[in-house]
């Protein structure tokens, strides 16, 4: 569904992505694991066109999308949930959701504010509250909801568990599983192995801008050596 082949990207002169290849299949939760600074967020930004890839290909639903502008990528059904959340602080929750709204997509049940509140019940009570006056966990729910309003076919979720209390992380895991159950494809970047192992179907490990391990979650669970080498700090 989403295929990266030998993707390279730079920040100024710094060569950050040095050939990332990765394949997300329809309906799977694919976890992108890696240490701080490994290039997880940059991979997602490169897919979205927020950091223009310098070479290599990005294919989504069989179409090349590298070089498109972020809004065009989003309109093709790729949703992006940034690591820093980037909630519009002065807009209310309802307005934040409105910004994310896009036309319904063929063959998908359209998302609405009510349906988002079904996935994240705590949002329902605060639709009128400014995004800036929410807790970290609530903001995380809001950003995911905001992206869902665009009726994406695949969601890029960048470290949704970062900085959240364990209870909220559990809630996030539930939400990810609920989305998967509805058939959503997800590329999830994580450092939290515990969280990743609970929701992932497949995994890729990135280090210094390149994929160093790939396989199914079951394989990774069995491969203690790889986890030790790439994931523990």
């Amino acid at each position, binding site marked *: 569904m989403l295929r990266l082949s030998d993707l390279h990207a730079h920040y100024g002169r710094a060569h950050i992505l040095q050939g990332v290849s990765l394949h997300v299949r329809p309906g799977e939760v694919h976890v992108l694991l890696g240490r701080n600074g490994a290039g997880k967020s940059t991979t997602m930004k490169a897919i979205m066109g927020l950091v223009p890839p310098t070479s290599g290909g990005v294919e989504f639903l069989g179409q090349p999308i590298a070089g498109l502008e*972020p*809004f065009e990528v989003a309109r093709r059904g790729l949703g992006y949930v940034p690591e820093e959340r980037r909630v519009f602080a*002065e807009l209310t929750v309802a307005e934040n959701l*409105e910004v994310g709204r896009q036309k319904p997509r063929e063959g998908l049940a359209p998302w609405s504010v009510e349906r988002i509140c079904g996935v994240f019940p705590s949002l329902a009570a605060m639709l009128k509250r400014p995004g800036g006056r929410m807790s970290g966990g609530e903001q995380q729910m809001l950003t995911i909801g905001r992206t869902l309003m665009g009726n994406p076919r695949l969601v890029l979720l960048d470290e949704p568990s970062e900085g959240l209390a364990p209870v909220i992380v559990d809630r996030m895991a539930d939400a990810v599983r609920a989305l998967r159950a509805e058939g959503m494809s997800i590329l999830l970047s994580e450092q939290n192995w515990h969280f990743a192992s609970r929701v992932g179907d497949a995994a890729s490990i990135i280090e210094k801008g390149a994929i160093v391990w790939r396989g199914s979650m079951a394989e990774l669970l069995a491969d203690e050596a790889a986890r030790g080498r790439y994931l523990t700090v």
Partner: protein
Amino acid sequence: MLGNLVVQALSGLASAASLFLVSAGLTVIFGVTRIVNFAHGSFYMLGAYLGWTLATNLPRGHVPFWGGVVLAAVIVGLVGVVVELLLLRRIYKAPELFQLLATFGVVLVVQDAALWIWGPQDLLGPRAPGLRGAVYILDSRFPLYDLVLIGIGIAVFLLLWLLFQRTRFGILVRAATADREMVGALGVNQRLLFTGVFFLGSALAGLAGALQVPRESVNLQMDLAIIAEAFVVVVVGGLGSLPGAALAALLLGQMQAFGILVFPQITLVLVFLVMAAVLVVRPYGLLGRAPAGHAASLAPVEPPIAPLSPRGRLVAGVALVLALLAPLVLADYALVVMTEICLAILFAATLHFIMGPGGMASFGHAAYFGIGAYAAALLVKHLAAPMELSLLAAPFAAGIAGLAFGWFCVRLSGVYAAMLTMAFAQIAWSTAFQWVDFTGGDNGILGVWPPAWAVPKPVQAWGTLILCLGGAFLLRRAIFAPFGAALRAQRDSVLRAEAIGIDTMRIRWFAFAIAAAFAGLAGALFAFTKGSVFPTYMAIPRSIDGLMMVLLGGVQTVTGPILGAIAYTGLHEQLMRVTELWRAVLGAIIIALVLFFPRGLAGLGARS
């Protein structure tokens, strides 16, 4: 007495209303596109001219009059869309300074277009039908039309508020003001949003202009006069904040209304002083916020400064010898041009000093040039001081002004610093313009002639050549001296510079003052070569001239300002000789340069 105060407050509200209309458009455009649109004042002026044409040509009556006002606003909105589509759309990613310059190019083009269509004379429009009279409030007279204007201001504020709160367009505008990259990543085509915002903002400026027609005459100075005030409102309110613009417009309107009762001489100065004070206490304005994350750099990134190559030295040496010999053979007119070029070189070198190695921006560098010129002229005029003494004193005056203004300016960065430097220049300009007893106001100071020995043109040419190139040379030495190294270090990274013990704020401050002092010397020399000084010496266009020279030459090359000054002065001179519409041509050239050569002339040479 009480009636008087009420009427004064009401007229403050009336000016606040039109100020708000203009500033609302400017602030919304900035919020979404991050472009500081100098041409916004030109849209206001266009609105006034169009309003005048419609009001004088349409039949009398309520419907034609108000219909004409709305039509003028819509036409100006469409002009804004054209400018956005043809120009700004291509430069959204360019450094802010270039964007500002490009929009200033539009100012010049619109000025000449208006001159060409409507002529140079002030135009008086008809009064609004049915609103000629006045109302009496506690026995004091207040024009009925101004009352309507206040009502329109309030109505537009409410409509905008509804637009921004209740419509998808408004929600997207507010979201994009906070974080436009995120809005794009959510699938919103920003081009449409930008164009829409430009239409709205320009139409508001046009509306404000058309509404002025029954109040005051329409003229070619309206654009820069209003843009300076609108910048103040927008910066005081917080860039991008609509309620901020409303609040600041109210504040400023009242200040002008009552300021005129208390300090009639310094109403203009007062406005800019308030802005400086607000920016120092709240650097992002009353209701503004620090921009999210990705702060764009103000000047283009360029390779580090390098000393001249041996070949470069040879060329420079030959050029210098030729310049020294030139007064022996050149005719008077050519010598005048040569003198002007020398002055331009020094002026550009001082601005380059703070922009290139210093990494600061100044949109008001003419202030120091003008202060030097006025210091010299005032010494001659009031104390009958000799030229030699005046030339010595002028850099001190300008340097002290640089210390005073610079103290504030070096504390800000980006657009805010640019706006503050402009505000200080406007303070200097308004002082010269309003303090008629001391400075002669608009008529300037005449009879600032050099002593007999310095009257012959060749002597003047040699004098300015030696002083200006000497000054430029000293600045160049400073760039490569330890002081310059520290200056460049803080430009590249404040953190790293502080880590090795550089007091970055202080070093920027001194650099600012040194540049101001040398600019003052250029100004004083200019005063003596022209024999007079005028407030225009410190006006916005002269500051822009300096910026043009520096950017033409390329910011990060030491020879850049010299080449830029020669090219720009030569161009200016030629254009003025060959065409009446030299402003439009100059504006078009500025626009073309920003579009096609964003690295400047020197950058061009470096690449080839």
